[in-house]
């Protein structure tokens, strides 16, 4: 339809040119550095092809870099991870559930209006246990508790509901989660409305254990994060690494900006400059660095006047 084509805001090429090529390449590189687990809690090394499974996605773990101690520790922790035993139900099918049913990992309560409120009771349970407890109630819900940086603990960081029925309402618990050391409390959950059909997937952030890489992160400078209160403006790699050492924080990777390359490296010249940082794992960050004090700025194409913004 010609009229609609006329009012297309941008073409694909124009949209792509609104981002720096380095930014787009970095995004892909950072995404592919994220670890992925198999649903049963098993792990597979990078390079081995995942088998296709019918119901579940077959996913594989990619250790970050061979020899990186954090990755090795992650695999070791995973190998020692004991999953909660599967709950077997003695209940005959057809019996109604009482108003509050406390299962091993999840607590279900019926809400007025016919919905369900579900709270996580064991945030460190194997995701297969959550899945099974939902499945017992004919709910196609995948709930996962994943390690995240401190400012995201207790919040939702991923949700997908491809169906077109009524949606889940997440229940968050920011500030009320304590999983790594002393406790295993992180009372997040979902409200399931009557008429919910699924499927749905929801990932909550829990505190990371030593050696676990964060699967989602807030700003490295937010309260609770490794670089809270630090200023890196105009500082060199040597200066920043020194300040981090005082805080018992190390650098997992340097992410090189600018035309000299892309990707993650383990060492850069100390005289290079630090532009930004991301949390990486407990006690570890990733630094964005480059040889010049200023990061490259965008160049407007020649001959294009910059329109003044309205309102």
């Amino acid at each position, binding site marked *: 339809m010609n009229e609609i084509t006329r009012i297309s805001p*941008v073409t694909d090429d124009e949209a792509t040119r609104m981002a720096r090529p380095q930014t*787009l390449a*970095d995004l892909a590189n950072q995404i592919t550095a994220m670890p992925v687990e198999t649903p049963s809690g098993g792990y597979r090394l990078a390079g081995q092809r995942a088998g296709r499974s019918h119901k579940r996605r077959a996913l594989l773990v*990619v250790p970050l870099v061979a020899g990186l101690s954090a990755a090795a520790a992650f695999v070791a922790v995973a190998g020692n991870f004991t999953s909660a035993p599967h709950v077997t139900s003695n209940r005959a099918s057809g019996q109604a559930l009482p108003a509050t049913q406390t299962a091993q990992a999840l607590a279900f309560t019926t809400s007025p209006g016919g919905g369900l409120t579900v709270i996580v009771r064991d945030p460190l349970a194997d995701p297969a246990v959550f899945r099974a407890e939902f499945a017992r109630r004919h709910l196609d819900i995948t709930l996962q508790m994943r390690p995240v940086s401190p400012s995201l603990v207790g919040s939702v960081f991923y949700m*997908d509901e491809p169906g077109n029925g009524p949606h889940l309402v997440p229940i968050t618990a920011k500030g009320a989660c304590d999983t790594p050391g002393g406790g295993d409390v992180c009372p997040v959950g979902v409200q399931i409305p009557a008429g919910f059909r699924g499927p749905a997937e929801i990932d909550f952030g829990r505190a990371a254990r030593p050696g676990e890489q964060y699967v989602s992160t807030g700003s490295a400078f937010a309260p609770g994060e490794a670089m809270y209160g630090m200023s890196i403006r105009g500082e060199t790699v040597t200066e920043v690494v020194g300040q981090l050492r005082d805080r018992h924080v190390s650098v997992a990777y340097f992410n090189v900006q600018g035309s000299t390359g892309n990707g993650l490296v383990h060492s850069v010249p100390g005289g290079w400059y630090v532009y930004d940082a991301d949390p990486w794992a407990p006690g570890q960050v990733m630094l964005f660095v480059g040889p010049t004090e200023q990061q490259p700025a965008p160049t407007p194409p020649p001959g294009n006047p910059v329109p003044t913004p309205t309102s």
Partner: protein
Amino acid sequence: MCMVSKGETWKGESVLSPPVASDSRQDRFQAMYQACHAAVLGYVVRRTASPEDAADVIAETFLTCWRRLEEVPSSPEARLWLFGVARRTLANHHRGERRRLALADRLRDDLAITYRPPQHTAEESRIVAAFRRLPADQRELLALNAWEGLDYGQIAVVLGCSRNTVRVRMFRARKRMASELASVPAPALWGSLARTEMAHE
């Protein structure tokens, strides 16, 4: 609906090098990303009025793709699968379920610099006004056809319905659009009204 104009762009050649032929998950993702990132950027940027939202939705779409790589069909269908994910992620954002991803920080910074509201002629403003009066699902149908250039079969894949359903709904959407266009005042009267309406976005 997105309010973006052809504003500043970034100079520089692509740093997305073609992947070495290989089986590995990373190589498969990089190949798909190289083939599809422009289409996803265009799709999302055309439908968001905020650079922050656009960056988060784009990053989340590709993160989903990485996590569910086995489900992504091979080209050319991969693009349609990605539009479906982007559409649902956008819907989450509009419902208020926004998640700021650190992953998207640099993209957010870039888009915040280059984002500009579009400058429409009087006639285009008239079309925009009529388009906005349509319900969201009709706008999406017309946009997938006119902006992404998808045919009915491809739209059916993105929306998860049958081709025949697309055909029927498209007929209704076009009819509605024509009637809205006919009811909007002629350009001569529209000049100052259009500027007022734009200012409220």
